[in-house]
């Protein structure tokens, strides 16, 4: 997977969390995941698709991270993953997928996003769109960690680059 297609999602996570939570977020080294089990206890998953690209992105949080994010965003302490925490995680995934879309438009790629789904439980699985390897990007937020998983399949790289070339010629 070309890093230029991963960066919009990474930048979207950083912008989303720094704006909504007010803390700086550090990206750690990415790795490839070969199994469906999530790193975290709660995941927000959202699909994106167009004629150019298809895939899904998930934000997956250990319970402690999810509760801390909820506390920071809503100003309220909760002791376990309830409906509000699930809603927050789904909305964060939604904002990340939408924000990434804005940067993808610079690459002449557009897509529609689905409604987020949220999965909870120890060792739950995340089903991504397509049978491509899943890239995992860990993030560090103070003492808390969370992960973004990205699966992506470009449908027609040539048509995308052809359109970009055509656009440059007419510009």
């Amino acid at each position, binding site marked *: 997977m070309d890093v230029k297609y991963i960066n919009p999602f990474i930048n979207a996570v950083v*912008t*989303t969390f720094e*704006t*909504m939570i007010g803390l700086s977020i550090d990206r750690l080294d990415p790795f490839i995941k070969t199994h469906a089990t999530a790193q975290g206890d709660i995941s927000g998953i959202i699909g994106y698709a167009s004629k150019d690209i298809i895939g899904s992105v998930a934000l997956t949080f250990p319970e402690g991270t999810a509760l801390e994010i909820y506390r920071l*965003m*809503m100003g309220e302490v909760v002791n376990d993953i309830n*409906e*509000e925490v699930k*809603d*927050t995680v*789904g*909305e964060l995934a*939604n*904002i*990340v*997928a*939408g*924000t990434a*879309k*804005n940067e*993808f*438009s610079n690459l002449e790629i*557009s897509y529609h*996003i689905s*409604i987020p789904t949220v999965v909870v439980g120890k060792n739950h699985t995340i089903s991504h769109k397509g049978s491509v390897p899943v890239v995992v990007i860990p993030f560090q937020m103070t003492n808390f960690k969370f992960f973004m998983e990205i699966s992506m399949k470009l449908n027609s790289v040539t048509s995308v680059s052809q359109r970009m070339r055509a656009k440059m010629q007419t510009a």
Partner: protein
Amino acid sequence: MRILVVDDSATMRRIIIKALNTTGFNDITEAEDGEDALTKLEGIDLLLTDWNMPVMDGLSMVKEIRRNASFANLPIMMITSQAAKKEVIEALKNGVNDYIVKPFTPATLVEKVQALSAK
């Protein structure tokens, strides 16, 4: 000033309402999707809406509202992460008056709402 806040995320509605409350906007109605919102328009002075929602999304709802002459002048603000040029143009063309990009800070939200409600 009665404000209708439309978003499928309950926590997002809470964040928006909290920001409005701190600025003295206290008369607020909530809806969780476009279809729900269409039944709650009577007496509304300002509408803040999400785009990506189940049942009926924000853009379809705005198109529906603008088809009704009695809501032709209702100020509508879209609050969404989808803010590529193409989306913004499409929203404005279909009757959205202003745009707030998610993620936002409460200060940005309040500033935009005050500007739109003063018009």
